[in-house]
């Protein structure tokens, strides 16, 4: 049943995939060029013995995974309840809430994976990958995607106006992408901000991805990272399932 829902999302995606190329591939690539290469030239010492570009690319990869995942679970989910009302159509078919939610989440994971794979290839072309472990960046990206997508589903299913999505981006997504060890090490943040950064799923994703592409040990325990991200995904699933049930099963 879950597969039918995934299939539905894949079919609708066929009509719009070109537009999504821009936001999920071209923009990260531009960031890598404009920022990684451009600013990198001015970071003379590199970071921890690694050239700045090589250091920030894995962070950007995790950040791209997060952006795609949140992008695809915010407006589309709100729209599915408030505008196109596709969820109500699905709920009228013999599907369980878990199928509707699961199929949609699988689609988000698919989007995250394809976007990350394209980015990883570009990173390879720029010679920023130091180890075969870089392949592990893909499952990590999928996990990062799930860890932020599931809670975003819950949030988007709760709100009624897209103004609240703008707030999510302003107060959640943008600060997270700026201060979670993507562009500079979180250790240079003052203590309270540093703790916030440690709490964000993106820092865990970025640290894991970085250790994969550079072939170095992560700065925190790898199982710890994985567990923490899973915890976000599981809590998100629980909340999203509860909220979807509230809206769909009346």
């Amino acid at each position, binding site marked *: 049943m879950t597969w039918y829902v995934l299939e539905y999302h894949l079919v609708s995606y066929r009509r719009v995939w070109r*537009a999504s190329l*821009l*936001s999920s591939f*071209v*923009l990260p690539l*531009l*960031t890598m*060029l*404009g*920022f990684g290469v*451009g*600013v990198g*030239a*001015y*970071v*003379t*010492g590199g*970071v921890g013995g690694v050239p*700045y570009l090589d250091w920030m690319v894995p962070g950007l990869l995790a950040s791209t995974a997060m952006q795609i995942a949140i992008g695809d679970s915010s407006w589309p989910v709100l729209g599915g309840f408030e505008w196109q009302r596709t969820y109500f159509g699905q709920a009228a078919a013999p599907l369980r809430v878990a199928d509707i939610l699961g199929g949609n989440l699988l689609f988000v994971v698919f989007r995250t994976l394809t976007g990350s794979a394209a980015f990883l290839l570009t990173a390879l072309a720029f010679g920023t990958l130091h180890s075969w472990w870089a392949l592990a960046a893909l499952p990590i990206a999928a996990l990062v995607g799930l860890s932020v997508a599931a809670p975003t589903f819950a949030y988007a299913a709760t709100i009624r*106006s897209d*103004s*609240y999505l*703008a*707030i999510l981006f*302003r*107060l959640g997504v*943008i*600060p997270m992408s*700026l*201060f979670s060890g993507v*562009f*500079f090490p979180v250790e*240079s*943040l003052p203590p309270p901000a540093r703790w916030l950064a440690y709490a964000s799923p993106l820092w865990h994703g970025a640290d894991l991805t970085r250790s994969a592409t550079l072939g170095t040990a992560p700065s925190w325990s790898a199982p710890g990272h994985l567990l923490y991200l899973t915890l976000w995904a599981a809590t998100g699933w629980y909340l999203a399932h509860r909220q979807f049930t509230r809206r769909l099963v009346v």
Partner: protein
Amino acid sequence: MVTFVLPRLISFEGAARRSASVVERNAATLRSAYWLVMASGFLEPILYLLSIGVGVGSLVGDLTLADGRVVSYAAFVAPAMLASSAMTGALSETTFNFFGKMKFMKLYDGMLATPVRPIEIALGELAWAMIRGNLYAAAFLIIMVAMDLTTPLRALAAWTATILVGLAFGAAGMALSTYMRSWQDFDLVASAQFALFLFSGTFVPATAYPAALRWLVEATPLYRAVDLVRAITTGGLGWTQLIDIAYLLTVVAIGLSVAGRRIEKLLCK
């Protein structure tokens, strides 16, 4: 500046009053969630300043400008953030929101049944974008002064410069919106905007780019805006800034006249 362009476009008493009534309508929508969206808008450039200017700045150290002056990376990035947030603020109001009001909410059809004229709608929306953008700019400049990235007097001068920057992008955005067919076209606008944000001498001096790219960059409106604001906040004003000002003024004039004519064409069929 405003008094310099407007009289040629409008020759009707009451036009200012009617444009103001369009602004009033927008002010009346400020409520609950939307209010928070607007208020949080000023956070964005500050976050970028802290992350890139301060965070990445600690890796970069000091920068030597083209004229030999040495400034901290944060002092280099801050004026660019200010200029690009003036751009973003003006564009979001005059492209996305403007298009929605025109095509989907049919808001302007209702307004045009009153004495309000198309050019007055355009000016009203632009004025609204300016008010919003300049509040953000003022807040950002206060932070810059507090972080010792510029002096209060220079901040004041930079504030007037951001008005010009906002007007230029607002007028251009509005003209652009009249050519848009669907929301998908706005993805392109957003991408172009992001590319400008990355490559307009915002994070590294344009001199760092290869010659061809550098010329291209120096011809973009955001580069001119960044150059103007940066020269003011870092205290390096020179003749080049006259080019910046002339460039931005030209954009304002062309944008406004195109927008006024196109809106009339679209709505008064």
